[in-house]
């Protein structure tokens, strides 16, 4: 279980105040809110890239608020600039496993399983720069899933995709969520588009 208690984060004129959220095991949350209300900041604060000015983040009762991003085991997938352009598709997916020094045989098995699960076999020989938006997003999701994160944060996972790719990825995310029993928190600026994406909605409000 991931628990966010009265989280606050501020820099310059911007301030994120008193955000509390409890994500139970296997739950799929969608974060909604007007532009500029701090959805991305919240995701990046949970991932550890912004130091919170108040509150705590608990993962299975363990306080990770002061931990570095690489120690939290929280996955983060962005909508743009998703894949490492200088690595192959396989290199992208196994990146986290290599960073964690997972034995080569185990890493290969995990990567092969994710390639099968996400249907990426056809794009393996292609340079990352030539992948379509949906394919690149699937590679980025596979890369994040390879390290078995306790929470997967998706920052606008469906933006920058055309209608068909969006529908496909939406179904893919729902299927993965069920199969892998993941905790998800996705951020989407368009409420209409988020319908059916997750099981729970969290709405952030902009003050002023």
């Amino acid at each position, binding site marked *: 279980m991931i628990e966010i208690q009265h989280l606050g984060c501020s820099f310059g004129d911007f301030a994120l105040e008193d955000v509390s959220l409890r994500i139970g095991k296997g739950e799929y949350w969608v974060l909604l809110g007007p532009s500029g209300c701090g959805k991305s900041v919240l995701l*990046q604060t949970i*991932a*550890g*890239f912004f130091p919170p000015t108040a509150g705590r983040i608990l993962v299975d009762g363990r306080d990770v608020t002061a931990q*570095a*991003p*690489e120690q*939290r*085991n*929280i*996955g*983060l*997938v*962005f909508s*743009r*600039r*998703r894949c*490492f*352009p*200088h690595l*192959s*598709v*396989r*290199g992208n997916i196994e*990146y*986290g496993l290599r*960073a*964690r020094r997972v034995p080569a045989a185990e890493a*290969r098995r995990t990567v*092969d399983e994710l390639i099968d699960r996400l249907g990426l076999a056809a794009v*393996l*020989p*292609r*340079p*990352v*720069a030539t992948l379509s938006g949906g394919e690149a997003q699937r590679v*980025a999701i596979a*890369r*994040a899933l390879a*390290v078995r994160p306790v929470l997967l944060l998706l920052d606008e996972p469906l933006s920058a995709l055309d209608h068909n790719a969006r529908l496909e990825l939406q179904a893919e995310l729902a299927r993965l969520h069920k199969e892998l029993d993941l905790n998800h928190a996705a951020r989407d600026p368009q409420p209409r588009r988020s319908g059916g994406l997750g099981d729970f909605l969290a709405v952030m409000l902009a003050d002023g």
Partner: protein
Amino acid sequence: MCPSWCRSRWLESRSSCCSALAAFWAGFLESLHLPISGSLAGVVIAQVFVASPFLIKTTMTAFESVPVRLELASRSLGASPAATFWRISLPLASRGIMVGATLAWARAISEFGCIVLFASSPVTAPVLVHTEFLRAGVSESRPIAVLLLVICLWVFVMLQFGQTLIPFALQRPRRERRP
């Protein structure tokens, strides 16, 4: 747009400033009894002095152009800041660094004023062009100047090839391992 006379005045002032600084450092190092002036080390120091801004500036720009999101993604996958630098930032900035290094090298090889003042021996190509011109005129200095020109042209061509070839090389997928 800066007028041409203004640019030439700026270049003149920059050049004289470099020369004055070089003379100052030469004097300073000599006062410390370090045999820099007139040695290979002196030539290298003078060339580094005039060329390093090209490398530093382009390297800074190259690192600034690396998308922050890729570095964040790397760290969220468990890579430390150092590992992120070696595996993500440096490879993605390498093209810019290579361009900067080539420009700096081209700048260093063509440096004349600073080397003449700081360490005129061993003789570098631009200094040799100058001394041969003074000794025997254009006919003797021309072959060396042409050689310098060919080297600079070759560097320019390699730079253009490098810019088109390197991104492709970086993106080329590695051969898949057989199960």
